[in-house]
């Protein structure tokens, strides 16, 4: 596959790569570092992508590996739980739905990594269980149990703290 085709697909996919990164990396800066790193890796190994592979799954797999191998260790730990870094830029009008939205983002950020990846791929990126299992390189049963535990944990965090954190 030509590197130009891969570039083209990457540019098209950038918003979703950033979104998936945001579920993994817990703050905007680390998330974009992760995307950048994954882009560089994908361009290096562009020959490995074949049209029969879904491009998003291929890129997510690269991101997951890049996160585990490289970026995670460099992530700025001191920023992890800083609320203003926690997620999507939203207006700070303090409305109930905005507060809830930030609470959900923070709850995702608190999930153990394996659960966070499963939640990010299926609930945020909308991959099927099969596709998500392939990205994570685990059997479907493992994926579903991580996803189920992730949902339970989120439920527990959010019902504990329905709106804001004191």
């Amino acid at each position: 596959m030509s590197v130009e085709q891969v570039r083209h697909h990457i540019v098209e996919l950038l918003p979703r790569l950033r979104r998936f990164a945001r579920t993994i990396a817990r703050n905007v800066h680390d998330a974009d570092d992760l995307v950048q790193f994954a882009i560089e890796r994908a361009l290096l190994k562009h020959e490995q992508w074949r049209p029969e592979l879904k491009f998003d799954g291929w890129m997510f797999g690269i991101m997951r590996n890049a996160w585990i191998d490289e970026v995670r260790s460099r992530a700025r730990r001191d920023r992890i739980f800083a609320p203003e870094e926690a997620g999507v830029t939203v207006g700070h009008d303090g409305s109930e739905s905005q507060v809830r939205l930030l609470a959900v983002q923070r709850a995702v950020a608190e999930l153990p990594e394996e659960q966070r990846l499963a939640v990010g791929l299926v609930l945020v990126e909308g991959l099927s269980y099969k596709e998500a299992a392939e990205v994570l390189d685990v059997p479907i049963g493992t994926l579903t149990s991580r996803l189920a535990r992730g949902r339970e944990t989120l439920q527990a965090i959010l019902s504990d703290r329905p709106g804001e954190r004191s």
Partner: protein
Amino acid sequence: MKFPPETLMAYADGELDAETRRAIEDEMAIDPQLAQEIERHRAMRAEVGGAFAGVLDEPVPDRLLRAAKKAAPQSPATQVEPRRQWTWREWGSIAASLLIGVLAGRAMLQEPDTGRGLVVARVDGRVIAGGALAQALSEQLSSQDGTAIDIGLSFRAKSGEYCRTFGARSASPIVGFACRDAEVWRVDMLSTAPRAEPGGNYRMASTQLPAPVVQAIAERMQGEALDADEEAIARQRRWRE
């Protein structure tokens, strides 16, 4: 009927087959708690999805656009890139030695039970099939289902010898072809294959040949692939020309 929690979750995510789906829907009609549980999963999905939806509307930082557009960084990986233009002959010497160098340390080239190598590099530079692979190449017909090795097709090379394509079933399948060389099978090409689906079809994965392998076979093959009768006869003659 009682459904495991993960099945309810899978229902909410649209992951179930029609039959299980119907069974759950029948049960939901009479069990409001079940319906509630599923609704909870759906609400969670919508809420988590919604919490990150805003990222899609953010402007993409310039540095990421630049990263996607700039020349691919140079590295040893890119320097061996013009691979597609290599002829099979180069593949024979480069691919086999290189890939074996790369793969030899990994379990996929060894039989899981015995740990014996499926391919063995000889000092003279030839790469020879060993263990279950050698046995399958000699004995197994294309139509037969092997346990560890699948044979795809058999053909005569332009240089006269018999060759056979194979795939080793494993989580990371290896495919390639080997040609008869006196009393052994010389592995002329090896490649990794598309991965098998999780829990899935290893045979499929071990019979899908990547384009460079197909190309190399096309260059080597004389006439058509052997049919079942011709193959059986060739086996009887122990693959001698």
